[in-house]
C-alpha cells in the first residue's frame, strides 16, 4: 500500500469536525444537536488514530477507546434529557428550554 501523508487524515478530521460544529450552531432540534456532537467526537477520535498511525504507536487507539466511552455516556444522558424536555414542553426546540424552571 502507498504511504499516506498525515495531513490528509488530519484534513479529513478537521472537515468532519467543522461540519459537526455547523450542525450544533445551526440546528434547533435537540436530536440534530446530539447527532452533531457525535460527529465532532468521532472527528476528534479520527485525529487521534491518525496521529497514532503516524508514529506507529497504540496510544492513539487507546485514546479513541476513551472517546468512545465518553460519547456513550454523553449520548445516554443527552437522550434522557431530550425525553424529559419533550415530556414537559411537548417540543424538541432548544430555545424552549430557556423557560424551564426547577
Amino acid at each position: 500500500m502507498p504511504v499516506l501523508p498525515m495531513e490528509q487524515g488530519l484534513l479529513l478530521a478537521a472537515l468532519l469536525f467543522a461540519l459537526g460544529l455547523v450542525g450544533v450552531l445551526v440546528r434547533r432540534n435537540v436530536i440534530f444537536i446530539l447527532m452533531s456532537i457525535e460527529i465532532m467526537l468521532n472527528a476528534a477520535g479520527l485525529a487521534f488514530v491518525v496521529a497514532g498511525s503516524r508514529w506507529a504507536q497504540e496510544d492513539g487507539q487507546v485514546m479513541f477507546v476513551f472517546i468512545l466511552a465518553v460519547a456513550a455516556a454523553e449520548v445516554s444522558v443527552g437522550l434522557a434529557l431530550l425525553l424529559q424536555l419533550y415530556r414537559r414542553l411537548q417540543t424538541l426546540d432548544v430555545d424552549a428550554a430557556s423557560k424551564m424552571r426547577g
Partner: protein
Amino acid sequence: MDWFFYIPAVVATVATAMVITRLNAVHALLYLIVSLLSVAMIFFRLGAPFIAALEVIIYAGAIMVLFVFVMMMLNLGPRTVEQENAWLPTRMWLGPIILTIILLIELIFMLRQSGHQPMTTETIQAKQVGIALFGPYLLGAELASMLLLGGVVGAYHLGRDSREERN
C-alpha cells in the same frame, strides 16, 4: 492515489453534510450511520482494525440504536418536517457557516504548512492496544468505567417519568 483512503473520505464528508441538512431526523440518522461506516473503512486503511470494529459495533451499532429507540418513544409525526423547515431560515444558518468556513480555511492552511509527514503502513493489532489499555492507561480505563456507571445512573434518573411518582 490511494483510493482506499480517498473514496471513504469523500463518502464520509458527503454523508456528514447530508446529516446536518436533512429535515427528517430518521433520514439524518441513516446518513450518520453511512458516515460512521466510511470512517471505520478509513480506520482499516490506517492500520487500526480493532478501532474499526469498535466503530462499527459501538458507534454505528449501539449508539445509533439508542437514537432509534428515542425517536420511537417520541413518536414524531410528519408535521415535524414542516416545523424543521420553519426553524431554518437562511439568515439563521448563513452567519455560523461563514464563520466556521473561515476557521476551517485557517486550519487547513496551518496543516498544509507542516510538510509531508508519512504515515506508517504497519497494522497495530488489538493485542497491543489491550496491553497498553490495561498497562500504562489502567487509571484511564478505571475512570472510563466510573464515567459509564455515572451515565447509566444519570440516564435512569433523568429518563424516569416523574408524573408516575406523584400518583
